[in-house]
């Protein structure tokens, strides 16, 4: 895999001294989907704005497809599409014209067949002659995506693409992201919704206070940091953990009817077989057994609160 977007020690500070980015470095591989997670004001949008040319970096080097975003900005920006967080569209303009405008802005001639293809894919074809003010919020968001795709970018930034979007559109959006990935487009999305990152991302980055706290393959991250627990529910409550089970890392819940066993999914031996044998040996009768894995959300909360501590 080749690196399509490279960010090295990117910093952005404002006149009032506020540091929005404190030396972010990361490489993004061609064709991957990267989710950037972080609380409000973490620096996600600043990072995207800087790469896209909306904000000027204080220092650092960013290249897109090998083109520096400052010295070779035309080639770099031609490769990038941006779907902004806020719906920003000229209300009186027609859908078709606004998509054609975006295409022209990136230096491409008005290719009706291509524009039609994009509009059809985003279910906007029937609305092509409508003024933007006549569209619903979800439709407007689709128009923003159509505009971003009008010049066939290799790298697509989606800044909070599903914020305030209904379930159906969110699902459509996820499908569209999967299709774009199939077509070889690299996608970087920021989100508040952990389940979104969990559902569609290949890698997950966590940003907080202008710093990249973590960047990892999603599955590895879940496996490494994800603790798994087995809850052993008993037919009769007990007052304390029997002595023969003391060797296991067990906790008894408040009612005394559930034993909670926490283990590492990556360990050679999880100790489950021995535990269950020992539970039977202790004369305890099982009512039910269930396993639980911590979600990306829990990992994220732990990470961010850990930083704050």
């Amino acid at each position: 895999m080749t690196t399509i977007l490279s960010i090295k020690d990117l910093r952005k500070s404002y006149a009032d001294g506020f540091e929005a980015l404190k030396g972010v470095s990361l490489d993004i591989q061609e064709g991957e989907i990267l989710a950037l997670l972080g609380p409000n004001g973490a620096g996600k949008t600043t990072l995207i704005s800087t790469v896209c040319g909306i904000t000027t970096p204080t220092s650092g080097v960013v290249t897109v497809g090998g083109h520096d975003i400052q010295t070779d900005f035309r080639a770099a920006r031609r490769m990038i599409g941006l779907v902004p967080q806020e719906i920003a569209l000229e209300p009186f303009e027609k859908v078709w014209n606004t998509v054609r405008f975006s295409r022209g802005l990136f230096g491409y001639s008005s290719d009706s067949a291509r524009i039609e293809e994009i509009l059809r894919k985003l279910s906007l074809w029937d609305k092509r002659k409508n003024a933007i003010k006549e569209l619903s919020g979800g439709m407007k968001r689709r128009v923003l995506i159509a505009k971003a795709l009008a010049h066939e970018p290799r790298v697509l930034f989606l800044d909070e693409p599903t914020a305030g979007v209904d379930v159906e559109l969110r699902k459509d959006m996820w499908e569209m992201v999967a299709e774009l990935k199939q077509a070889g487009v690299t996608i970087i999305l920021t989100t508040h919704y952990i389940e979104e990152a969990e559902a569609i991302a290949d890698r997950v980055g966590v940003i907080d206070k202008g710093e990249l706290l973590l960047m990892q393959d999603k599955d590895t991250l879940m496996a490494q940091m994800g603790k798994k627990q087995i809850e052993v529910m008993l037919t009769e409550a007990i007052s304390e953990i029997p002595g023969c089970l003391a060797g296991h890392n067990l906790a008894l819940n408040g009612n005394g009817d559930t034993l909670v066993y926490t283990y590492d999914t990556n360990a050679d031996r999880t100790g489950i077989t021995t535990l269950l044998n020992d539970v039977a040996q202790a004369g305890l009768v099982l009512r039910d057994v269930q396993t639980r894995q911590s979600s990306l959300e829990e990992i994220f909360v732990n990470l961010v609160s850990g930083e704050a501590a």
Partner: protein
Amino acid sequence: MNWTAIAAIYRFEMARFFRTMMQSFLSPVLSTSLYFVVFGTAIGSRIQEVEGVSYGAFIVPGLIMLSVVMLAISNASFGIYFPKFLGTIYELLSAPVNFIEIVIGYVGAAATKSLFVGIVILITATFFVDIRIEHPFAMAAFLILSCLSFSLLGFIIGIWASNFEQMSLVPQLVVTPLIFLGGTFYSISMLPPVWQTITLFNPVVYLISGFRWSFYGLADVPIVYSLLAILAFTGLCLGIIGWIFKTGWRIRS
């Protein structure tokens, strides 16, 4: 140069003009007609002629300039302020275009619109008074340069403004008084000597004088001064735009 992008911006801006065709077309025709009725008829009956030209015909160049200047400023300032206000400016900033191309697109469209309105007013005026154009090339040059330079000024105002009030501040508080006091409706030779001298500090005097000279060969100030004044003003606006380009003032954080 990304000419496709310039064309896209130009076309997008012109589409706004054509969407409001009635407004774009009818309002200058109506206001010019009103000026003729009010100034031409009411005042013209008292001032028969100014330096051998009928009063109605005398005010035509000034009337054209008045509308062209105001429209160039408002078109160009709205053109760039609107994307800032709506947030759609993100697209301009993230596109492979530089500031010069953005300026050419927006200022070109604003200048075209005001030129169009200038021509409409000229044609309307022919229905009310007899007009002769002694120096047609000079007339065209003054008209086009005025459209361009005031569109540049409008663009600067649009970049500077952070709300709608500021947008109308410069046109209403600075430009309108300068135009009305710049010899639109009178020759400065009709003023007392002291005011004649003071008026010479008004840059619009040079513009209207030069423009009127191209019609009737009459001028309050030598034509060379008029030409230098409009070129200097264009140069000043370009200089400010160049500075904005270098610093990213009010555009890029």
